[in-house]
């Protein structure tokens, strides 16, 4: 058998020399920061569309809906060192909707965890860039996800770990809205509320569509904010494509409660013919449609 690839920077730093920081300086003014985040998000979108176009596989709708959330987190919020991806004091990020790996890989590459050249291997034989992320293969991936309803329990464990260690690092989990139909999320939500984990933020990518239909026509989620509040969470509702609003929601102080950000998004955001259409859950754009999409994402 041939062995699989792994991806990281070519010269990782030795332990003890890490610099954990956000990518954009926290001192940056809001308008400049939002402009930067918009640029990075566009880069990520362009990359993931190209990846899916080359692989002829992927989940383009959900990738595009989660991009602004990922960009705001990875460039503006998370304290990380791409050259020391396992530095003990790093913030933990878990993408529970692991099928949107293309968006995560593109974000990690643009954040410097590995070369953007590697993105062209997405889903190719033996590539580290599997259809769902693997922490043992890809630097910056914190947990292997794919089956839905796994990310939040893991995030709760991370947040408990930071509390036990009296450490300042924080945990962020991005969830799909459809996956909230999995009961394990609510086990974890109850646990986090009970423990008052104010070092934990869950972000729901509320694009209102799941694989086969609208969430509300499949297994109703609303009133979603009330559900989280009933489990002891502080709930913030915001536009999931507004980098400023996301930044505020992600960084506002928390006291005594975990936070759930319900990020209102549009599945397929940024590509007109993909936006808000059920059929684009994992449909692959034709080469012509890829060209069109890249023009729209210029």
């Amino acid at each position, binding site marked *: 058998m041939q062995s699989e690839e792994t991806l990281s920077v070519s010269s990782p730093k030795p332990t003890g020399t890490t610099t954990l920081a956000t990518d954009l300086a926290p001192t940056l003014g809001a308008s400049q920061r939002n402009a930067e985040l918009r640029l990075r998000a566009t880069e990520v979108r362009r990359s993931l569309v190209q990846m899916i176009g080359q692989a002829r596989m992927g989940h383009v709708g959900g990738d595009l809906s989660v991009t602004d959330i990922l960009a705001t987190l990875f460039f503006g919020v998370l304290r990380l060192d791409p050259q020391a991806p396992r530095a003990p004091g790093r913030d933990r990020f878990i993408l529970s909707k692991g099928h949107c790996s293309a968006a995560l890989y593109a974000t990690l590459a643009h954040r410097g965890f590995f070369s953007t050249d590697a993105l062209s291997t997405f889903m190719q034989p033996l590539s580290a860039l599997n259809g769902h992320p693997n922490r043992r293969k890809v630097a910056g991936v914190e*947990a292997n996800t*794919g089956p839905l309803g796994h990310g939040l*329990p893991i995030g709760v464990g*991370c947040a*408990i770990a930071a509390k036990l260690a009296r450490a300042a690092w924080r945990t962020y989990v991005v969830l799909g809205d459809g996956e909230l139909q999995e009961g394990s999320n609510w086990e974890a939500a109850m646990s986090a509320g009970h423990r008052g984990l104010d070092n934990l933020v869950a972000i729901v990518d509320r694009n209102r569509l799941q694989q086969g239909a609208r969430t509300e026509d499949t297994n109703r989620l609303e009133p979603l904010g009330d559900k989280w509040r009933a489990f002891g969470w502080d709930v913030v509702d915001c536009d999931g494509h507004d980098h400023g609003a996301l930044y505020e929601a992600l960084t506002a102080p928390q006291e005594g409660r975990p936070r759930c950000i319900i990020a209102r998004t549009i599945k397929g955001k940024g590509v007109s013919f993909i936006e808000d259409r059920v059929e684009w859950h994992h449909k692959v754009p034709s080469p012509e449609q890829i060209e069109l999409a890249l023009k729209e994402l210029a």
Partner: protein
Amino acid sequence: MEASPLAKPPQFDCRVAFAETLSELAGLDERIVAVCNDSVGSSNLVAFQKRFPERLINVGIAEQNMVGVAAGLAIGGFIPFVCAAAPFLTGRALEQVKVDVAYNGLPVVLCGMSPGVAYGELGPTHHSIEDLSWMRAIDGLAIVVPADPAQTSAAVKWAAAAGIPCYLRVGRTKVASVSPDPANAFTFGKIGVLREGRDLTIAATGVMVSRALAAAEELERRGLQARVLNVATVKPLDEAAIIAAARETGAIVTIEEAMIEGGLGAAIAEVVVRHAPAPMRLLGIKGFAPTGAAEFLFDHFGLNAQGLVAAALELKGR
């Protein structure tokens, strides 16, 4: 035939050694935490909780969350021992065991308490007879089944230091002490030869090991020298010891407190058929159990010295 008396009377509940060792280790290493599902009492963790209240994380009756939380604790730098009744840990949280623990390659020790038919009269819902088959099929997950308190204690110490995903099956059924050298009771990946013999081999795991020794004594009275193997590491299997047993004794009987399909006997058969074909008999649980205490159910399924002797005699054509 009368039951052969055990060499030593069964008297030890391995959960006691488990809990004492875990507390001892937690006193030495701050990274050790216990995660449980309202199972503080049934996992014997009351003393641990008293000593380390913060480090006993009881998530309530929520097994999927329990295993996910343990994976998160490991990502956060801790060494979690998940302590829960084996049927619910391995059944309800099977996908979390596979993905969150094994596929992530995290150092989580999954402690399946009171496995097999230990819960007796509570019935098949509470029996964990499929766990060895399920856990064996998961890549990268070590399976350790101690046979007595000395092995349990040594296995807990090994698991805390191993840094790999592990399923530790901790018996509730009382057992006799079977370790010839309690100070060196467990070596990961090695089969213990408890008794030498050239006529056949009995390979046993967990609470069945003392029964295998009793059967070997009875077989000796009938003129057969049985080699007795204590298979405390079910995965990865000590293939060399299995191959040697097959070649040198020519016949193998296996016994386990689990379904035959996919358990210890099946694991040994996979090695034997490939490297040293020899006739075998596989003893184990044969389906959902009727009502009865654990000891009654062992007899019901022939998981005792008589059952082993009968299988051995049949295998040897006597």
